[in-house]
């Protein structure tokens, strides 16, 4: 088994998803099942192959660094769970 409960706990913390203790074992089994199936990639000879990160063959376009839109705090905050004085309200970060 590629992944144990401790690894799931660590990865869930990295991904910022609370997983209850009783879910760790079942998740470890599920994820291991998927990763076992993925292991077949090791059969492919990829010596000297460049990793493919995009299907686009043209270089990324450049553009002028200009202001296109903005100055719309109401629009930016329209969907915020908590707002005060045109700011997002977030939990305290620094004690």
């Amino acid at each position, binding site marked *: 088994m590629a992944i144990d409960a401790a690894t799931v706990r660590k990865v869930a913390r990295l991904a910022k998803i609370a997983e209850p203790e009783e879910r760790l074992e079942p998740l470890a089994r599920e994820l291991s099942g998927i990763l076992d199936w993925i292991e077949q990639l090791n059969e492919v000879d990829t010596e000297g192959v460049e990793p493919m990160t995009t299907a686009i063959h043209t270089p*990324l*376009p450049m553009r002028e660094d200009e202001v296109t839109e903005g100055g719309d705090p109401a629009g930016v905050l329209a969907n915020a769970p908590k707002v005060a004085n045109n700011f997002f309200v977030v939990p305290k970060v620094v004690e």
Partner: protein
Amino acid sequence: MSDLTSLTLKDALDGLAARRFSSVELTRAHVEAIETARALNAFVLETPEKAFEMAKASDERRARGGGGPLEGVPLGIKDLFCTEGVRSTACSRILGEFKPTYESTVTSHLWRDGAVMLGKLNMDEFAMGSSNETSAFGPVVNPWRSDGGNAKLTPGGSSGGSAAAVSAELCLGATATDTGGSIRQPAAFTGTVGIKPTYGRCSRWGIVAFASSLDQAGPIARTVEDAAILLRSMAGHDPKDSTSLPVETPDFPSYVGRSVKGLRIGVPKEYRVDGMPAEIDRLWEQGVAWLKEAGCEIVEVSLPHTRYALPAYYIAAPAEASSNLARYDGMRYGLRVEGANLSETYEATRAAGFGEEVKRRILIGAYVLSAGYYDAYYLKALKVRRRIADDFDEAFQSVDALLTPTAPSAAFNLGEKSDDPVAMYLNDIFTVTVNLAGLPGISVPAGLDANGLPLGLQLIGRALDEGTLFSLAGALEAAAGFRAKPRRWW
């Protein structure tokens, strides 16, 4: 249901132009059809008021002698597309009642060209699924049922709402997206036409991101010509998406009906997989015979890395997803579940907001990108991806397009595969290669299986050669003469 809802999109455009009916009348027929079809769960948000407002404006434009290429045509929009002022959720709880303050580029093109929005269509959460069962709004039910059976079937996924709505005549066409097969597999399961264009043909701006190097928008429609009309409007360069290709959009509808004589069609032997139903193999043979009769030359080709496409995809796509979905932190929009501190707020929000499949993929993505595993998994997958793309390059040295089945089975029962992620992933075995390589692929309904369920054939083309695909798909459509419709039970 009515004469107006059973029209093709092309016939509807002709009828509107000839003043045989108005956009308001056409829209009313569809709004009524949607109201009586709620058992399908295809729409997660109906917007009849907006639809009538848009239809009225369209009729006024037409009365003044104006009008665009989609003038007055009512469409459904997959809930992955952000629509200004209209709730857009990607069918996830984490987006809650999110109402975008902007319009996606693709949908803005549709409205520019005169189309009418009927509402937002159901889908797998964040487009992660092949059966529509991961939607926070519950699964869509396929309008098709087996002969004599009444079991609920999946419409496929992730664009299951789009496919079901088009098949059940609730809209004349729909937007959809395809990261691993999410346009083509639902099209095959519902007897509709779906095309995933070349990566970069349609702007991704304003479409909720799943795996950015693979996501592409495309239409689902009832005919090849309708799909071509819709894609012509959806496509086009957009400076707001740096991967949008700065190329002209061809007049796709003009390719439908063109002769395909002399085209070389490759049949990849690796797509003949173990356990594939004999009916699908027979339909594939039939497709080969149809294209041969139309004057094509058939060539067997080899795509040796085909079987590695799905495992490579299930590293690359979750890796990109885990990064893209990091934005759902409960701070700026959507759901927030308060915790004792910032970290606990993040963790509680994401635990409550994401469904099980989405969490599974985020965890896999975070794992394969984490220290110590990046090279073994992520980098390896990207190298295999290159191998798969090279296979296609090699094949397209000697052929103009490839013919394959779209999916390894017909529509299956809801619930049948939901406990086995890998079995579910195998649905995309014939479609996912195209996403990895960035190529266009189209699914055309080609026949029914022994239970009376639709089956599709897929054509794969060279990058930016959707035109040839539309010609070939038109030839297949004409030869197959697929006229079957689902029996109305809803």
